[in-house]
């Protein structure tokens, strides 16, 4: 699909944004998977999250690989965005922590220990 003009580009962007609207009811999980995140075990965390989703029968979720979130000292890290909520970052993950996040945050929307406060501005 070659974009041949600026109008095409704007059209494509519009389509992408429309597609995102269909994702508004989805749980979106981003896993920090740059070299550092992978080295810290991010891929295992991702697999475990997918397994948990299957076990719990949750289907309305999207999981994606993203780059470095900047929190080297907290790796592995993920960002969870529940429908209608602001994204929340969790760090120092292991299976037990993921279990807790599922039990309390994903199922009951209850914030758990160890969330990472946003300490930056972006554009």
């Amino acid at each position, binding site marked *: 699909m070659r974009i*041949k003009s600026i109008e095409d580009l704007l059209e494509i962007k519009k389509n992408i944004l429309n597609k995102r609207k269909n994702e508004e009811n989805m749980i979106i999980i981003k896993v920090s998977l*740059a070299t550092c995140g*992978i080295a810290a075990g991010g891929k295992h965390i991702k697999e475990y999250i997918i397994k948990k989703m299957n076990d719990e029968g949750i289907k309305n979720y999207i999981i994606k690989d*993203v780059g470095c979130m900047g929190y080297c000292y907290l790796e592995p890290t993920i960002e969870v965005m529940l429908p209608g909520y602001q994204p929340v970052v969790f760090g120092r993950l292991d299976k037990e922590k993921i279990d807790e996040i599922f039990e309390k945050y994903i199922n009951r929307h209850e914030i758990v*220990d160890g969330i990472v406060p946003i300490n930056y*501005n972006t554009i």
Partner: protein
Amino acid sequence: MSYQRYCLICRSSKCNKFSNSIGENFKEILKEKELKESVKVVFTECFGLCNKGPIVKIMPDNTVYTGVMPMDVREIVEKHLIKGEKIERLIHQENKPKQIKIVLRNCGFIDPENIEEYIEKDGYMALAKVLKMSRTDLINEIKLSGLRGRGGGGFPTGLKWEYAYNAKGDEKYVVCNADEGDPGAFMDRSVLEGDPHSVIEGMAICGYAIGAKKGLVYIRAEYPLAVKRLAKAINDAREYGFLGNNILGTDFSFDIEIKYGAGAFVCGEETALIKSMEGERGEPTSKPPFPAEAGYWGKPTNVNNVETLANIPVIINKGANWFNKIGTEKSKGTKVFALAGKINNVGLIEVPMGITLREIIFDIGGGIKDGKKFKAVQTGGPSGGCLTEKDLDTPIDYDTLLAKGSMMGSGGMIVMDEDDCMVAVAKFYLEFTVDESCGKCTPCRVGNKRLYEMLEKVTSGKASMEDLEKIKLLSNVIKDTALCGLGQTAPNPVLSTITNFWDEYLAHVRNKKCPSGQCKELITYTINKDKCVGCTACLRVCPVYAISGKVREPHVIDQEKCIKCGACYTTCKFNAIEKK
């Protein structure tokens, strides 16, 4: 059960001292007030405000309280949570976070292997915009933005582009320098792994500006994931028509090729980088001619660093006048730093130019590990120098760092605490440059090697005062006479530690002692007879059988045999081993 409100308590680094008792108090008082069911106490990671800690945040009204002590908790519960009155004296006044993500705007937020996610975040809009601009207007916009090269030197990017634009040649090249080699630096890798399209877009814009049809990314093969994601991004960009012939229906054509480096530090120097791309040995050439006149295959070439290029789309989208309001008078925008070393919050950060080291280390970085004392921070990697306590409040930009005997460099920032020996640090960096010297010019090849040997004499207690004078002299000679940036800057760590930590050099030379106890050859381990219970633990761990003694009788270390590994020191449970 669902909670209506949350009390977030920071449990990170400095706040950690009080977080438990603050938490306990909250729980107790919430229980007393029968709010336990509706307010939850949550411990969080760092807020990046460690200097003002301990931090408590009330959600969902997002009130941040600083300097909260356990005894303040009752007031917070009674006034804020019950009556809804905020406590003015504790409220965090300045609500501007210290970090601004411009280069890292998408890093960690989008899927780097999905071009649609980049387009969603205004990706390639800047390219579309510039294709309607004249080349000189575009270059003027970059000049107006005040952007300077993020690879280390800080040369004004707009001016560099203008030189390449004005240079005559049938073919021109845009080169992205992704040869990140400083120990402890990972900014470029993170950008390429997290947001490769921003670099591709920056390169295409630069290509249009200077009139190049071809771009090259010089990246080290030891960054396999960055290479993989970049290659995928280039293919996707080509498929979508952001690269290739007649981009977005205009007559501008531009494509990008990846060139792999073998990981030689000197290839980060632009002339050596170009030689390496041509298939020759990565050796620098003397300037002039600058790459803008005669670069890759003798054609006009513009070399920019990854971070510099990632800034370009934002400058175009937001305007130069937006960008140049961030930062200091002569250094605009932000800088990405890789915070490493003896610091609590090791991480990748992006801060506006002009921020102080204190804010970076003690707020964002969460202070020094294990409550130790800050000693120095090395900026600019092996080419830079160290900054100390007295520099903590200096606003950081290209010029202030140079004036302090260090440099911005590409953004590695290694923090050292009281346990680090500064002579050993200087020796470490020098060893790196000695290894990485290409060997072309004598000052660097021979000079740095001799300088290293002299430092070795210092750390082993064999140096004289005369040697120290020689170290100073040789450092300055190398600085003045080496061919390229690598050699010219190699003695910087030595010179800056001599300036800032002369006492430590003197201690090694005059007293034959290493004040931080790091230089093995100057340490002696002895057993304190009064404390030793004769448990034989040290005797059993000693790898060279230097410890002898009978059970329940004090042991002794044979200094002749001791290799100073410190195994006994860490094993002894009675603090009977003394390190001097």
